[in-house]
């Protein structure tokens, strides 16, 4: 494990979707696992998320979407990070994401997608292995 500062994660809800049960549970699980957590609250545009992530100096953004707009919203978030030179912020996503969409999202730069039923422990372990303080 890296010494010094703890992993900082932004849990974000892009778009107009109000299903925040998953996002809030994940935020709590991250906090309980010892990460620092920033939760954006609902109804954020990708622009707002990226700006806040840079300002908060997070190591990872976890995007949650359950209303079908993930293709545009996730990919736009990754693009904006790249534009701002912040592509070292790891982006992962979760929610109702059809299996077929996952390769395309990963190709665009989303590092991992967690679909319904993934145990919290599995997600936390993934973060520990794949995200380092920047």
């Amino acid at each position, binding site marked *: 494990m890296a010494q010094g500062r703890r992993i900082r994660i932004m849990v974000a809800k892009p778009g*107009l979707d*109000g299903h925040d049960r998953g996002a809030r549970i994940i*935020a709590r699980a991250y906090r309980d696992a010892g990460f620092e957590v920033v939760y954006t*609250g609902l*109804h954020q545009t990708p622009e707002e998320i990226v700006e806040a992530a840079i300002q908060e100096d997070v190591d990872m953004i976890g995007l949650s979407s359950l*209303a079908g*707009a993930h293709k545009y*919203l996730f990919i736009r978030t990754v693009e904006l990070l790249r534009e701002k030179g912040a592509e070292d912020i790891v982006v992962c996503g979760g929610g109702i994401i059809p299996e077929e969409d996952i390769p395309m999202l990963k190709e665009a730069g989303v590092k991992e997608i967690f*679909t319904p*039923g993934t145990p919290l422990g599995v997600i936390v372990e993934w973060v520990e292995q794949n995200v380092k303080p920047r």
Partner: protein
Amino acid sequence: MSQVFDRKVFEEIEKGRKKWEKELEKIFASAPERLERFSTVSDREIERIYTPADVADLDFERDIGFPGQFPFTRGVQPSMYRGRLWTMRMFAGLGTAKDTNKRFHLLVKEGQTGLSTAFDMPTLMGYDSDSPRSRGECGKCGVAIDTLKDMEDLFDGLPIDRITTSMTINPPASVLWAMYIAMAEKRGIPRKVLGGTIQNDMLKEFIAQKTFMCPPEPSVRIITDTVEFGTKEVPKWNTISISGYHIREAGSTAVQELAFTLADGIAYAEAAVERGLDVDDFAPRFSFFFNSHLDFFEEIAKFRAARRMWAKIMKDRFKAKNPRSWWLRFHTQTAGCSLTAQQPYNNVVRTALEALAAVLGGAQSLHTNSLDEVLALPTEEAATIALRTQQIIAEESGVANTIDPLGGSYFVEALTNQMEEEAWEIINKIDEMGGMLSAIEKNYPQQEIADAAYHYQKRIDEKQRTVVGVNKYVTDEETPVEILEIDEELERLQIEKTNRVKSERDNKKVQECLERLTEACVEDRNVMEPLIDAVKNYATLQETCDVYRKVFGEYRDPGIY
């Protein structure tokens, strides 16, 4: 008074119980009980057995009675399903108004008896399809409605003078309802005959579903406008569907769902009374919407307790005299959150059990989820299986032959009493906080739900609660399921359509209408007539909602977790 059990029998029962428990101890000494603790989905502990001693004070007239009679534990209508079955009302909405219209025609042809509309996220939030906030969301989880033109296409060829329509819409409920009324009037159908429901329940949005626009107080004011207007102008319309469904989906327990929903109902009734309306004029048009989750008996007890509690609230607290005001009529949807992406065909079975609980609980209408809803919007085939599930329950299983078949079950009656008691405690707490509006400001229900949701997830992760195919009986094989894709072209086409409407309308007239709407908002006059005028002149959804946002301000998520 009609005490169900004679006190004398309890001694005998107690003796019998002791004897039986002795037997049990012997058995469990060699092979212990299957679980350390037996509990419901809501983690309520359940006893080994229930006897008359668990419902010792049960009074037939006071607590159970007959259907159609106070306190309505057994059902609101005297005849219940012996007269008419529940309304099979499948929620549908996808893509454009024309796409959804096609699905509606299919469902009506397959025997569905009421329509139910799902809107896309921009519509639910009061944005037009061309708003930057709508990017990527148009038509995705429901139908996109920008103007009256879309509403006309949505109900084209459907007999809206005979069939009732439910619209799941909240912050812009007044606008969509105005569009529906305008559409009907343009077809020559007077508003007096229109039957249906707008969800129009903002309190549960702040608590759970999180589709919000204006702050809580003006939101309740707009709702009260619709209640007032409906009472006078559209008497067959249910102006609010007070919803526990989303509270439960957000992770609450069954009792929290029950208590928060009824507390919301109290808040709306108080607002309407404050407006000067007579409770017996508006209360009969209040309807409810509950979740039916997997824990069979807990759900049935919840529905029975809800009816009994609302009857008491209306009669004792609001002094309603019309028995119709005492009725808690409710729609049910099976629990979306109980479905699993893994082994999705299992969802048909889950939904069937949940639907059965809703029927045994005396629901007035029911939506059964499709097996693929955890993956995407339902395909036609999946939606048809879900509808068939209801038809099998209704016409093959025999459960609708008698009214409230579980009435008198020691277990169900004890559970009904217990849930009622616990829900009153929560309602009293909310009263002490100064009502639901201040409880929401204090984040009380939001925090309670977040805690319950986390507890539930932990239990699944720690395998204290089984989810078949997820934490037990897992297979590596993927089950291919056909998924409904929404065409990405749709967004562009919808924007084009709205632009066309805007270029063909009388813009000066629209501006005048919006000014009149602004005045009504500012001067505290009922918004409905100005709204109907505005949408008849093809003002867009967002143009009218922008008036609300400008006058009342916008609400932001406090981001509790």
